[in-house]
C-alpha cells in the first residue's frame, strides 16, 4: 500500500498534466506539483537510500527540511546534485534520479551495511581504519557513502548579483509574514518594503491549513492579503527567493531562482540572482520545523511528519497512504489527521503522549478517530515500508500493535531561528514548547509567528501586525507539548531510532558519543555527524540536543545549539560567483607592448595582477633556448624590455625628503636633484618588504620605484604613515604606475638606439651617468628617463605617458633593427640579475629576512635617523651572529642548476639534517656557461670560498659559497 492522488490540491493545476522521469521510469504529475508530491501521488515510496547503511528511505517532510529525498536532477552540464525533491517544481520532461543507490533504490547491494549496523556505530570508520593510514581507506568509504555527483562539465548557466536597500524586509510569507508586510508598508516613511518567499507560492502554511483566520478560510485569507500587497506601490514581492544569510548591519543575502522551474530548453537569461539587501529593519517570519519522534524503525518508508502529510494532502492532493496512525505530543498533528481523513485516508488512531485531552480531542471523537493517550510509538514494523506500529503505554508499559501503512509523527515544533541566530541574536529554551526560541536580538530584527513560537494562526497574525508597528503584543501562552519517550542508555532499540536521517545518526550513536565523553554539542556533531550535510539538521538538531540533555541530566539551555551559519539552505556556487567567472574572475592588466609582443610570439604569463611576456621564443625554441638567445643578445648587443609594470609613486611636498628619510633604510635627504638611489623598504617588523630605485626630481619632489607586484601596497603604506603617524608632514603621495609606460633598452648599443629614436636629452656618459635621472622628450613626447640597470648592462628606462607606450616600443624596435635589437621577457631579466647577484625581494628574501642579511648592515650603521622597522632589526633575533645571509653558490660537481629551495649543509655533512639555509635563486647562466645560484646561508658572508653540500631533491650536490656578483663584478658595463 502506498501513496495516491486525491481530487484536492490548493496549488495544483489539474488542467496541466506534466510528464516526468524518475529513476528511468515515466510518470505524470500536474503543474504546481513538486517532484516529491508527484512521486508520492504516483505511489513511489522509496525515494532514496540512506547515507551510511543504504536503508530504503521515503519522504519525511514536504519542505526544505526534507532529509531523505535527495536527488540528482537532470544530467550533463546542467545536472544538479543533492537537490531536495521537495524543492523541485515539476516541469515538462523533468528527469531525476536517486543518489546513493547501486544499482537502484529498490535493490541496493550496499544495504548489507544495514545488517552489520550494530558494528558500525558513530566514528566507526575513524576508529577502525586508523592503521596504517585513514587516507588509504577514505576514497572507497567515501564512494560507498557518497551522495550525488558534481557535473563534470563547465556550468553553461549565467548568474547575476543585485544590490538593494529597503526599509523593511519580511522573510517568509505565511500568515504572520503577509500580515507584517502589510502593516510595515502602511507605516509612513517606509518607502520600500520587501517580502521574500523561498517557495514558488506565497502563503507558507496557509496553503495547506484547514483553519479559519479572521473568519475566512486560510487560502481565501491568503488570496485576499496577497492581492492587497500586490497593489501597494512600496512593496517588492519576491517568490522563489531564499533568504539564506543575515549578516552585520542589516545585510541579508537572498538567492532568487529565476529559471530552475522551467524545462531546460525553455530557460533563458540568468539562472539565479544573488541579492545583497541592506535593511533598516528585518522581520523574520520563517516559520517552524516539525520534530520527528525517535522510535525504533522510524526511518521506514511510510513514516512521515504529520505536517508534511497535511501539506501533501491539502496543497498537492497527494496522500501518503491508506491507513495512518498519528503519533504526537501536541495539537497540530490532529489537524493533519483531520485533513487526511477528509482526503480519504483511514485514521487508525491518534497516539498522544499527553494524559489530558488536547484542544482538538473532541473533534477527533466526533470524527470517530480513536485517541490513545499517555502512549508513544515503540517500533515501526515492515521491511520496505511500514506495515504496523507497536505502541507502548507510558504508565504501565503495555504494548499494542496497530496495522497501518503510514505513521505520522509530531514531537512539537522548532522555530526556524537560523537567521535570527546568524544576525547575532541569542536563543532561549522554552520548556513548554520543548524548543529554542529567539531571545535577545542584536540588530533591528524581530521574529514573528511560528518563528517566534506562536503556533496558532490568529495569534500569529495579531502579533505580527503589532510587532511590525513596533508595539509589543500580548499573546496567549502557547500550549505546552507533552512528554517524549526516552531511551535507556544502552537500549538496543535506540540503535534503530533515527535522529538524523540524512547522516544515519541514531539515538544509540548519541548515547555512544556521550559515553565516550563527547559531551559538548559541537563535539557531538563532529563525532556523530549529527546535523551535518545539506539539511544541517533541520529535522534533527533539537532532538539530538534533547537526547544529550536527557543522558547528561543537563537542561537543553545549558547544552545549547551548534552554531547557525549561513547559508540557511544550500546555495549554488554559481550564484556566489555571479559574473566573476572565467576571464572575468580576476581580469589581468596588460602592458602597452602587450599586442606587439603577442605578435612576436611571446609566451605571456600572469605575474601578480599583470600579464607579461615571460620570454619570446622564435622558430619553436624551447624556454631555455629562448632565454639563452635573449640574454646573449642583451650582453652582446642590445635588448628591449617592457618595464611598464614597475611601480611608480610620486612623493611631493616640502617634507617629501624628510618623509622618505623615515621610510627607506637608505639615506634620502642628501640625494642630489637628478640623481637616483637604490633603496630598501622594511615593514615595521624590520622585515625586508620592497626594493627599488628612487629619484629626486626636484628639491621637494621624488619618484619612488617599487617592484611590480607591490606598487599599490607601497602607496597604501605611505598614505597610512602620512595620515596616521606623521600627519604633521606636508607631503602628497600618488601612485602613477599606470600613468607612465616604461621601455627599458639595455646593452652596449642602448645609447645608440635611444638617440636614434630622437631625444633632446644629452645621453653622453658624462652628462647622463649611471644612477641619474633626466626629463626631456623622446620622439616629441614628454619623457622621464632613468639610467638604471637590472641587467648589468648600459641601460635606460624611458617613461612616456601610458598611451604612447606602444609607439615607443615600435620606435625603439625600428631604431634598433640595425643592431639586431632583441625583445626579452621577465624570465631573461631574472637570469641576468642572478648573473649580477642582484637581490630580488620575495625570491631572495622571506618573512624572516632583515636588511643586514642582504648586505645593508653597513648602510644602516651609517644612518643615524630612525626609519620604519629600524628598531625591530635591533631585537635580539636581529643581533644573532648566525643569521642567514645572502651569498652566491658556485656548483662544483659539474652538474646542472640546483633546485630553488634545496638545502645547504656543511661540507662534511653525511645526513640531510641540520640545514644551514637554502637556495633562493638558481639559473643556468648563458653568459658564463655554467649554473649559478644564490642562497641564504648561516654566516654566509664569512664563509666565502667554503665548500658546502646541498641536499637537492633527495640527492647530494657539491657547491662552494661565493660572492654573488658572478658577472662583471666591477660594473664596467653598467657604467659604459
Amino acid at each position: 500500500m502506498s501513496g495516491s492522488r486525491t481530487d484536492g490540491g490548493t496549488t495544483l493545476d489539474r488542467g496541466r498534466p506534466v510528464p516526468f522521469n524518475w529513476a528511468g521510469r515515466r510518470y505524470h504529475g500536474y503543474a504546481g506539483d513538486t517532484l516529491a508530491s508527484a512521486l508520492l501521488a504516483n505511489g513511489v515510496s522509496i525515494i532514496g537510500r540512506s547515507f551510511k547503511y543504504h536503508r530504503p528511505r521515503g519522504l519525511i517532510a514536504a519542505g526544505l527540511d526534507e532529509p531523505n529525498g535527495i536527488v540528482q536532477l537532470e544530467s550533463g552540464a546542467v545536472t544538479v546534485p543533492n537537490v531536495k525533491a521537495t524543492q523541485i517544481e515539476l516541469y515538462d520532461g523533468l528527469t531525476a534520479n536517486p543518489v546513493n543507490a547501486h544499482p537502484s533504490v529498490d535493490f541496493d547491494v550496499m544495504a548489507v551495511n544495514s545488517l552489520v549496523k550494530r558494528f558500525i556505530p558513530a566514528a566507526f570508520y575513524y576508529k577502525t581504519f586508523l592503521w596504517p593510514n585513514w587516507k588509504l581507506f577514505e576514497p572507497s568509504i567515501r564512494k560507498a557513502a557518497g551522495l550525488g555527483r558534481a557535473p563534470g562539465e563547465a556550468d553553461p548557466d549565467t548568474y547575476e548579483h543585485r544590490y538593494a536597500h529597503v526599509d523593511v524586509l519580511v522573510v517568509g510569507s505565511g500568515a504572520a509574514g503577509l500580515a507584517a508586510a502589510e502593516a510595515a508598508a502602511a507605516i509612513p516613511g517606509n518607502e520600500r518594503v520587501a517580502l521574500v518567499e523561498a517557495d514558488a507560492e506565497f502563503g507558507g502554511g496557509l496553503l495547506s491549513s484547514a483553519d479559519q483566520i479572521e473568519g475566512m478560510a486560510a487560502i481565501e485569507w491568503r488570496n485576499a492579503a496577497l492581492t492587497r500587497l500586490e497593489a501597494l506601490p512600496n512593496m517588492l514581492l519576491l517568490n522563489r527567493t531564499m533568504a539564506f544569510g543575515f549578516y552585520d548591519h542589516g545585510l541579508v543575502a537572498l538567492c532568487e531562482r529565476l529559471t530552475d522551474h522551467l524545462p531546460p530548453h525553455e530557460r533563458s537569461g540568468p539562472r539565479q540572482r544573488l541579492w545583497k539587501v541592506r535593511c533598516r529593519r528585518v522581520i523574520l517570519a520563517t516559520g517552524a520545523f516539525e520534530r520527528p519522534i525517535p522510535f525504533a524503525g522510524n526511518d521506514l518508508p511510510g513514516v512521515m511528519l504529520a505536517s508534511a502529510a497535511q501539506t501533501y494532502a491539502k496543497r498537492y492532493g497527494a496522500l501518503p497512504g491508506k491507513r495512518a496512525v498519528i503519533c504526537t505530543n501536541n495539537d497540530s498533528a490532529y489537524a493533519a489527521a483531520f485533513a487526511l481523513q477528509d482526503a480519504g485516508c483511514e485514521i487508525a488512531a491518534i497516539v498522544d503522549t499527553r494524559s489530558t485531552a488536547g484542544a482538538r480531542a473532541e473533534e477527533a471523537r466526533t470524527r470517530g478517530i480513536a485517541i490513545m493517550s499517555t502512549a508513544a510509538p515503540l517500533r515501526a514494523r515492515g521491511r520496505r515500508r511500514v506495515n504496523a506500529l507497536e505502541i507502548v503505554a507510558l504508565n504501565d508499559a503495555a504494548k499494542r500493535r496497530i496495522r497501518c501503512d503510514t505513521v505520522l509523527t509530531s514531537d512539537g515544533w522548532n522555530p526556524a531561528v537560523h537567521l535570527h541566530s546568524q544576525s547575532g541574536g541569542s536563543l532561549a529554551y522554552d520548556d513548554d514548547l520543548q524548543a529554542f526560541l529567539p531571545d535577545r536580538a542584536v540588530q533591528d530584527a524581530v521574529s514573528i509567528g511560528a518563528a517566534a513560537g506562536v503556533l496558532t494562526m490568529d495569534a500569529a497574525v495579531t502579533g505580527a501586525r503589532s510587532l511590525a508597528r513596533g508595539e509589543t503584543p500580548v499573546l496567549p501562552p502557547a500550549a505546552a507539548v507533552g512528554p517524549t519517550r526516552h531511551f535507556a542508555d544502552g537500549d538496543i532499540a535506540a540503535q534503530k531510532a533515527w535522529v538524523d536521517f540524512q547522516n544515519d545518526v541514531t539515538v544509540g550513536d548519541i548515547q555512544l558519543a556521550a559515553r565516550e565523553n563527547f559531551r559538548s554539542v559541537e563535539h557531538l556533531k563532529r563525532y556523530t555527524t549529527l546535523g551535518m550535510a545539506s539539511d544541517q539538521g533541520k529535522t534533527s538538531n533539537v532532538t539530538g540536543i534533547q537526547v544529550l540533555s536527557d543522558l547528561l541530566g543537563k537542561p537543553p539551555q545549558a547544552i545549547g545549539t551548534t552554531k547557525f551559519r549561513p547559508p540557511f539552505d544550500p546555495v549554488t556556487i554559481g550564484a556566489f560567483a555571479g559574473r566573476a567567472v572565467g576571464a572575468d574572475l580576476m581580469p589581468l592588466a596588460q602592458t602597452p607592448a602587450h599586442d606587439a609582443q603577442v605578435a612576436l610570439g611571446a609566451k605571456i604569463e600572469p605575474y601578480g595582477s599583470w600579464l607579461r611576456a615571460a620570454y619570446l621564443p622564435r622558430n619553436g625554441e624551447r624556454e631555455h633556448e629562448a632565454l639563452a638567445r635573449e640574454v646573449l643578445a642583451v650582453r652582446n648587443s642590445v635588448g628591449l624590455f617592457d618595464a611598464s609594470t614597475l611601480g611608480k609613486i610620486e612623493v611631493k611636498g616640502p617634507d617629501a625628503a624628510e618623509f622618505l628619510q623615515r621610510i627607506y633604510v637608505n639615506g634620502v635627504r642628501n640625494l642630489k636633484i637628478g640623481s637616483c638611489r637604490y633603496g630598501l623598504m622594511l615593514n615595521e617588523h624590520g622585515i625586508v618588504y620592497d626594493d627599488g630605485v628612487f629619484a629626486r626630481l626636484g628639491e621637494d619632489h621624488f619618484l619612488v620605484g617599487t617592484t611590480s607586484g607591490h606598487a599599490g601596497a607601497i602607496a597604501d603604506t605611505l598614505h597610512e604613515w602620512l595620515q596616521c603617524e606623521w600627519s604633521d608632514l606636508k607631503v602628497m603621495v600618488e601612485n602613477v604606475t599606470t600613468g607612465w609606460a616604461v621601455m627599458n633598452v639595455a646593452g652596449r648599443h642602448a645609447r645608440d638606439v635611444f638617440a636614434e629614436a630622437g631625444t633632446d636629452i644629452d645621453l653622453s656618459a658624462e652628462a647622463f651617468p649611471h644612477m641619474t635621472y633626466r626629463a626631456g622628450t623622446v620622439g616629441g613626447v614628454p619623457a622621464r628617463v632613468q639610467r638604471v640597470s637590472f641587467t648589468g648592462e648600459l641601460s635606460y628606462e624611458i617613461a612616456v605617458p601610458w598611451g604612447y607606450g606602444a609607439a615607443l616600443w615600435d620606435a625603439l624596435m625600428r631604431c634598433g633593427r640595425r643592431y639586431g635589437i632583441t625583445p626579452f621577457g621577465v624570465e631573461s631579466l631574472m637570469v641576468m640579475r642572478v648573473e649580477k647577484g642582484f637581490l630580488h625581494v620575495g625570491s631572495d628574501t622571506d618573512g624572516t629576512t632583515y636588511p643586514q642579511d642582504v648586505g645593508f648592515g653597513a648602510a644602516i650603521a651609517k644612518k643615524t635617523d630612525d626609519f620604519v622597522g629600524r628598531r625591530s632589526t635591533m631585537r635580539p633575533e636581529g643581533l644573532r651572529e648566525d643569521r642567514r645571509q645572502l651569498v652566491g653558490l658556485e656548483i662544483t660537481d659539474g652538474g646542472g642548476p640546483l633546485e630553488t629551495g634545496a638545502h645547504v649543509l656543511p661540507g662534511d655533512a653525511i645526513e640531510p639534517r641540520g640545514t644551514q639555509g637554502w637556495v633562493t635563486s638558481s639559473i643556468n647562466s648563458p653568459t658564463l656557461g655554467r649554473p649559478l645560484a644564490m642562497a641564504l646561508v648561516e654566516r654566509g658572508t664569512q664563509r666565502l670560498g667554503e665548500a658546502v653540500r646541498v641536499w637537492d631533491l633527495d640527492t647530494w650536490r657539491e657547491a662552494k659559497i661565493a660572492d654573488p656578483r658572478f658577472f662583471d663584478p666591477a660594473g664596467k658595463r653598467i657604467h659604459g
Partner: protein
Amino acid sequence: MLLINCPNCGPRPEIEFRCGGESHIERPGPHGEVTDEAWSDYLFYRSNPKAEHRERWVHAGGCRRWFNLVRDTVTHRITAVYPMGEAGPAEAAR
C-alpha cells in the same frame, strides 16, 4: 558585512574599506632608547576587548582617507566615527 559611515563619502559597505586595527597606539622612540619590551608592546600587544573598541579604517575603495571609529566587538554596532589625531568619545574603552 558592516556599513561604515565614511566621514568623506557617507555610508558604504565594508568591502570598500580596510581595517588597520586598534587606534591610538603610540609609536615609541627614539629608536636608540626604546627597550625591547616597549617595542614589542607597540608591535604586538593590543587590548582586544569584548566591548567598544577604537580602531582605524581607511576607505581604500573611495577617498583613501584614514579615520577612527568606535565599534562594539560583540554587536558590531558602530557608535562613533572621528578623524585621525582626535581622541574620540571619552566613554569608549581604550
